[in-house]
């Protein structure tokens, strides 16, 4: 994470030096809607039944609102509020694992809900005009991430009263996001943006389980792994 922030700050300095020859003008501020893909990585994206650190998160969608107010110096303050949905990847791994763990003929796993997060982040922006219509907006944001882990219910074939479940779990933590977007001014008031961001947070989940009387089969009672990855976004903004 520190390396990525260092790279972004270096890029900021380099581009600001290079663009010092460009025509100076106040960049338009904007507010708009954003959406795209969200690709988690690390243990959160693993789907290995035998690894308790697996988060079973897949590449999903993100959507929300974005906005920034630029001052005359091309520095601005802004933020985003987004909903990231990572779905659930690897339900088959769970079904196969529980079948083996309990030595039953068959098992069925129902996933309850999805892995997702609600993110509200603010921070400084720096806009670099590239020409009269195109600019590069870079930002480093921090704020609140409220994340949810999907739950699941496991049915063991031909065994009465053996059904057990892991409940959905929710946790809130501090989150960081850093990235850049190319903004094209369609008109003086309408812009299109194409961006990429790296996001990270590390919520501390307490996980509840139902009907787990025995020491058998995968069971997690807490989850404390980084929720990190890359967002790719397309935004439509109103410029002012």
């Amino acid at each position, binding site marked *: 994470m520190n390396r990525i922030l260092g790279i972004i700050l270096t890029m900021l300095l380099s581009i600001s030096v290079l663009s010092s020859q460009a025509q100076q003008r106040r960049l338009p501020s904007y507010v708009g*809607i*954003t*959406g*795209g893909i969200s690709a988690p990585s690390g243990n959160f994206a693993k789907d290995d039944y035998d690894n308790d650190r697996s988060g079973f998160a897949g590449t*999903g*969608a*993100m*959507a929300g609102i974005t906005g920034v107010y630029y001052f005359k110096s091309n520095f601005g303050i802004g933020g985003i509020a987004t*909903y990231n*949905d990572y*779905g*659930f990847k690897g*339900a*088959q791994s*769970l*079904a*196969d694992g*529980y*079948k083996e763990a*309990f*030595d*039953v*003929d*068959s*098992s*069925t*796993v*129902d*996933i*309850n*809900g*999805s892995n997702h997060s609600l993110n509200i982040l603010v921070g400084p922006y720096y806009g670099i005009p590239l020409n009269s219509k195109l600019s590069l907006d870079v930002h480093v944001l921090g704020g609140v991430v409220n994340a949810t882990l999907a739950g699941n219910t496991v049915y*063991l*074939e*031909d*065994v*009465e*009263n*053996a059904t*057990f479940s892991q409940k959905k779990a929710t946790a809130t933590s501090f989150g960081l996001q850093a990235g850049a977007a190319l903004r094209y001014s*369609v*008109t003086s008031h*309408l812009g*299109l943006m194409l961006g990429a961001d790296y996001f990270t947070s590390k919520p501390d989940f307490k996980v509840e389980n139902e*009907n*787990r*009387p*025995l*020491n*058998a*089969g995968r069971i997690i009672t807490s989850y404390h792994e980084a929720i990190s990855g890359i967002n790719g976004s*397309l*935004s*439509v903004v109103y410029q002012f």
Partner: protein
Amino acid sequence: MKKVISYASAVIILTVLWGSCKKDEQAVAPPVPENEFLTTVELKVVNESDPSDVQTASWIDLDPDDDTPPDVSKAKLTLKANTKYTVQVLFWDDTKTPRGDVTAEIKERENYHLICFTATSGLDLTVKRTDHDTNSPALEVGLEDEFTTGAASSGTLNVELRHQPNVKDGTCDPGSTDADVNYQITIQ
């Protein structure tokens, strides 16, 4: 350019709708043909007062799917009266060479297996399980036991391997039967 704006807005809206309309997922792990059988159940009994006094009783059914009855010719024990015996219950797959050690698998899965013993009313025999699993609290398993004989008598001892995935509670009621065998016991 208005078309581009419209398309971009549509993409964002469709993304939101796609995320909210996804159905909950379900996965099934289906049955697969077994390649391992439980063909032989043995009781290995050792006289606690005379360790050289060792007997093994075997119940054998090499092909449980056909109509051939099991071989019970060796499913017999002759025990001394008023004596304690250390007992091991052993499970084998004798369709393989060398024989498959099913006992080790049951030991690995002891947290949801229980061996149950039932003596007919005329047989003066008490069975006590001496091993425990790693559940919390720990529950008996029955792979290792102690037989205590009383007065001279005879009868049948039923030995049943219960499979109790996520329902083991220390009793023989929950779950299903993996093996159900009988031994003829004579106490003299």
